[in-house]
């Protein structure tokens, strides 16, 4: 392999990273931090998070909220997660029951491929405390994915739609 071979490509040499990781595991290293001028390889492993309860048979914690063991901070931002440049993920503004159609017999408000207008096109209804809240699109564009099922209970921050704003 090319550990001694010069060139800017070497930092990204997966072979070597692999060897470094093996080395960390074999020798119980918790961190490796290598720098040279503008180049850096930093590897950390081991104990960074909370005790995990998910393996517990006696519990059926809702995967969505409970699963992530990462520090709260990492997932704390309810801000829309940009994906690619122009894909906007619209999340639930409240906890409640998600409806894709105004009534059981009606057609869906929107389906993949539909164009939606910011603040005007109603994309779904979320029922909270017997109130049916019509939720308008947060951006203009084309619906590229519907991420929740009709009548599914959704919590605050649950991704509902992906909308391509470039179209």
């Amino acid at each position: 392999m090319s550990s001694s071979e010069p060139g800017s490509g070497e930092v990204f040499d997966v072979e070597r990273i692999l060897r470094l990781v093996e080395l960390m595991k074999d020798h119980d290293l918790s961190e490796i931090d290598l720098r040279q001028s503008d180049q850096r390889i930093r590897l950390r492993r081991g104990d960074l998070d909370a005790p995990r309860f998910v393996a517990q048979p006696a519990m059926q914690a809702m995967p969505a909220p409970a699963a992530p063991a990462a520090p709260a901070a990492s997932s704390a931002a309810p801000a829309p997660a940009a994906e690619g440049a122009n894909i906007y993920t619209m999340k639930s503004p409240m906890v409640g029951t998600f409806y894709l159609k105004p009534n059981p017999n009606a057609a869906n408000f929107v389906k993949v491929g539909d164009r939606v207008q910011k603040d005007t096109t109603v994309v779904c209804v979320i029922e909270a405390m017997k109130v049916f809240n019509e939720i308008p699109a947060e951006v203009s564009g084309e619906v590229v994915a519907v991420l929740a099922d009709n009548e599914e209970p959704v919590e605050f921050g649950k991704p509902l739609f992906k909308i391509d704003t470039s179209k």
Partner: protein
Amino acid sequence: MYNRILIANRGEIALRIIRACRELGIETVAVFSEADRGSAYLELADEAYCIGPAKSSQSYLKIDQVISAAEVGNVEAIHPGYGFLAENSHFNEVCRSCNIDFIGPLPEAMDMLGDKNKARAMARSANVPVVPGSGGLIEDESEAVRVAREIGFPVLIKATAGGGGKGMRVAANDLTLKVALQQARAEAQAAFGNAGVYLEKYVERPRHVEVQMIADQHGNVLHLWERDCSTQRRHQKLIEESPAPNLPEETRNAMCESAVRLLKKANYTNAGTVEFIVDQENNFYFIEVNARIQVEHPVTEMVTGIDLIKAQFAVASGQALPFSQSDIVHRGVAIECRINAENPDRNFQPCPGRIEKMFVPGGYGVRFDSHAHAGYTVPPHYDSMIGKLIVHQPTRAEAIACMLRALDELRIEGIATTALFHKKVLNHSTFADGWVDTGFVERTLLNKP
């Protein structure tokens, strides 16, 4: 008994309620803010719903979101814990209007006791002693002097529109009273545009003693003896214990009986606390009722052997209390130290952040209630309490020794905590002798008058 309930709270009290429910076979639905996402205790709930961003006003205090989660979670009841919506009678009403039981008293009782003046009046009518005062506004000097002589000096002059100590004065005799009255009036006028003031007996070096109550829907109103919570800093309790040291038996009994009379009159149900102040001559005066479970409830659980959270569910679901007053025997001494993420060396400023390492004390007579663990990040958005260390021993001296060794064992690294400050208090002769008043900590340990 319920099959499924929602916990409208977070942190240690949410975990405390989850624990009780698991033992009772009740399914739990937890709610959490974005800041608490991923907390380990949530995984002990059967379900957990995010109800909003970190800010309490947009999550834990948002009634519609909590109720909506309760409906989505399909629960029969909501336990509010303490703080947040626990004493919000509107929330209490909304729950019931949605056919969801609120684990606490009825809204009427909550409102009645929540209003200081109404509560005071009810106390008088139940012939529970209250701090003597002018009752109404003081119109002129002569009246002030008459009332002051009647209730006895020293007296406290309070602005009726008051708050934050503004328009407050202490007077020790006729002369100082006249001066103080004018100053208070002027200050009140300036501060609130209302010069109305009233008089109240000034209680020197009071002790804070409260009585734990539990009442069912069948007219049984029982007391679970008292707790002394005099070890405070800025009116924040640091250490609570039971029994109250150096409290004469007759005072103790009279106080507990007063609490029972008051809550009976208020048609109170579920758990609650009746707070009193006790002066240096062991006279006690009613202050207020806390219509909720309190942070320090474990102290009472240890000395009575009664699980208060389990009892709350039992009475809320309509069961009659399985014990009578005479069954409630007080055994030994229990002390609780609140472990807060605060830096005692920096004026107790909150110290949120990641707990790198943690070693929890154990062994005989030690109980630790905490949702924290190594790797847990204390969020900056909520109160700084991260755990409660409780000990139970046959005698007070043993309890203090046990608490000291437990505090030595407790290791929380990565953030500052109040653990070691508690050792200062426990090692002080005034605490050892059991003569702490509510001003002790600031006066003696923080050198503040």
